[in-house]
C-alpha cells in the first residue's frame, strides 16, 4: 500500500476514532446531543454525496428516504417494543422504495432533469400524505401516525435484542459516529470496486458506458437504492436523537438543505459534504438562538455565494488552490536542484 493511500485512509480513520471515543469524555450532555445531530446530518449528506456526486443522479428528494427511515423505525419500534428489527426495517424500507421508484425512472429512460422533478414530487407527496394523518383512525398497529402533530416519545435504541437496556445519549452519539465512519469508508471502498468505477463513468457519460458493455440503468438503480438505505439509517438515528418525528422531515426545506450541504462542501467528494453538513447545521443552530436573521435567508445567501464564487465547493477549491500553493515551492526546489545538478540545463 502506498504512503499516499495510508495517509488518505489513516488520517480520517484516526480523526474519526478520536472523535468517537474522545468527545463523550470532553463534552457536556447538551453539546454532545448537538454534535450527535450534526453527525446524523453528515450521514444524510453522505447519502446524497454518493448518489449525486459519484452516480450523477441529481436526487432533489433525498429527504423522502430520510423521512421513510425515521417513520419506519418509529412505527415498528412502537409496535415491537424493541429496536433491533426496527433498525433493519428503517434501512430496508427506503432501500426498497428507492429500488421501485428508481426502476420506473431509470428503466423508463427518464432524463436527468425529470429524475430531479420526480424525486422532489415524491417527497412532497409523502409530506402531504403523512401530514394529513392526524385523526386517530390513522394508525399502524399500536402506533398513531399523528399527522402534522408528529410522533412523540419514540422508543429509544436498545442493545440488540435487549429491550430493557436502552442506549444513553452518549451511546447514541457513539452509534451515530460509528455509522458515519462505516458509511464513509464503505463508500470509499465501493468507489474502488469495479461497480464504483462504472458508476463514476456513468456520471461522465451513460451512453459510453453502455457501449463498453455495462448496464448503466442497473448500476444507477443500485446506487440510488444504496443511497436511500444510507439516508434511511440517518433517519433512524435522527428519530433516536430527538425521540420525535414529524412530517417536516419530508419538507422541501429539508431536501434543499441536503443539496446545499453537498454543494457547499463539494460535489464529487466525501469529506466536503460531511464538513458542509456539520458546519451548516451548526450555523442553523446558532442562527436559531438569535432573532436577527432568518436561517432560510442565510442559507439562500450562502448558496448564491457558493454558486457564483465557489461553484465546485469548498473541498475541491482547497485541494486545488491551497494544496497546489503548498506543493509549488517544493516543485520549484526540485526543479532548481535538477538544473543545478551536473548536466542539468540552465
Amino acid at each position, binding site marked *: 500500500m502506498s504512503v499516499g493511500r495510508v495517509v488518505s485512509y489513516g488520517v480520517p480513520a484516526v480523526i474519526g476514532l478520536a472523535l468517537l471515543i474522545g468527545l463523550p469524555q470532553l463534552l457536556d450532555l447538551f453539546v454532545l446531543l448537538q454534535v450527535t445531530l450534526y453527525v446524523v446530518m453528515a450521514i444524510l449528506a453522505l447519502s446524497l454525496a454518493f448518489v449525486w456526486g459519484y452516480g450523477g443522479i441529481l436526487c432533489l428528494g433525498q429527504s423522502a428516504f430520510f423521512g421513510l427511515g425515521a417513520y419506519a423505525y418509529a412505527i415498528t419500534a412502537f409496535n415491537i417494543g424493541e429496536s433491533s428489527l426496527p433498525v433493519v426495517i428503517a434501512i430496508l424500507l427506503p432501500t426498497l422504495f428507492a429500488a421501485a421508484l428508481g426502476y420506473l425512472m431509470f428503466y423508463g429512460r427518464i432524463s436527468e432533469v425529470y429524475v430531479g422533478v420526480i424525486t422532489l414530487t415524491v417527497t412532497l407527496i409523502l409530506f402531504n400524505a403523512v401530514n394529513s394523518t392526524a385523526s386517530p383512525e390513522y394508525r399502524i398497529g399500536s402506533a398513531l401516525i399523528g399527522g402534522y402533530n408528529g410522533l412523540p416519545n419514540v422508543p429509544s435504541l436498545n442493545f440488540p435484542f435487549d429491550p430493557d437496556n436502552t442506549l444513553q445519549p452518549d451511546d447514541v452519539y457513539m452509534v451515530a459516529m460509528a455509522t458515519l465512519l462505516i458509511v464513509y469508508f464503505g463508500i470509499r471502498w465501493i468507489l474502488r470496486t469495479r461497480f464504483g*468505477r*462504472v458508476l*463514476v*463513468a456513468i456520471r*461522465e*457519460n451513460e*451512453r*459510453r*458506458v*453502455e*457501449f*463498453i*458493455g*455495462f*448496464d*448503466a440503468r442497473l448500476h444507477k438503480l443500485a446506487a440510488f437504492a444504496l443511497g436511500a438505505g444510507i439516508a434511511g439509517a440517518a433517519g433512524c438515528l435522527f428519530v433516536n436523537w430527538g425521540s420525535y418525528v414529524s412530517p417536516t422531515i419530508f419538507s422541501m426545506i429539508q431536501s434543499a438543505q441536503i443539496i446545499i450541504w453537498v454543494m457547499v462542501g463539494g460535489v464529487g467528494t466525501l469529506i466536503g459534504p460531511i464538513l458542509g453538513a456539520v458546519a451548516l447545521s451548526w450555523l442553523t443552530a446558532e442562527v436559531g438562538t438569535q432573532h436577527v436573521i432568518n436561517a432560510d435567508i442565510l442559507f439562500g445567501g450562502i448558496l448564491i455565494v457558493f454558486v457564483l464564487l465557489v461553484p465546485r465547493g469548498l473541498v475541491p477549491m482547497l485541494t486545488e488552490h491551497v494544496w497546489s500553493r503548498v506543493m509549488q515551492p517544493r516543485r520549484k526546489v526540485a526543479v532548481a536542484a535538477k538544473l543545478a545538478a551536473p548536466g542539468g540545463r540552465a
Partner: protein
Amino acid sequence: MILDVDDLHAAYGRIPILNGVSFRVSDGETVGILGHNGMGKTTLLKTLIGHLSATAGRIRFSGTDVSRWPSYRRARAGIGYVPQGRMIFPALTVYENLRMGFIARGDWSEENAVNDIRARFPRLDTLLDRAGGTLSGGEQQLLALARTLCGHPKLLLLDEPTEGIQPSIVDDIIEILDGLHRFDGLTIIVVEQSLDFISALSQRVLLIQKGTITRELSAEQLSAGALADELGETV
C-alpha cells in the same frame, strides 16, 4: 458468418434514415462503408450497436438475433464500438479508461487485457496517469480504440477514426488495426471518409446512398485502384 444484416430500417423519430440495409460480413473480414454525409453511415453503426433501435429488419451476430438487445448486451456479446468523436471518459485517467473497457470473458483477466493493449499502444503507455480529457485529439482517438479493444471484441465497429487526426497517428491506427486483423483475426467494419485509410484497411467496400447499400467493391477492385474512380462516379 459473424454478422448478417437483413432489410434493416431505422429512423430518428419520423425521419427514416436506413431503408432496408442488407449485407453480410464473414469472420476475420475487414469491410469499409463509404457514402456522402447524411446517407446513413453513422446511423448504420449506431443501429448495429443498439444505440438506435431498428424499426424493422434483423441483425444476427454470430448466429444469434441481437436486433432487440440493448447496447450493453451487444457489447458483452463481442461487438466493440468506437463512436465518432472518440467519447472517452475525460475525467478518468488513461489507465482507468483502459480498465473500464475490460469485459470479463473466459480466463482473460483485466490485468492481461490492459497489459496487452499497453504493448500494442506504446504511445499511450507513457500517458497512463494523464486524465483522458487532457490528451490531444489523436491520442484520445487511440485511447477510444484501445479501450474498446480491452473488451476483446470479435467485431469492431469504427466510426470515422481518422477525423481530425494527425497523419502519424492515422498511420499508427492503420498499423494496429492491420495487425489485429491479420494476426488476431479481428473482424472490422469501418465507416470512413478517407479513401486512403479505407483502401489501406478494407477487403471490400460497401457504398451507401439514401439509407441503402447501392454498390459493393471487392478486394480485387480495391487492389486495382478502382476505388477512387468508382467513388468519383458514385459518391
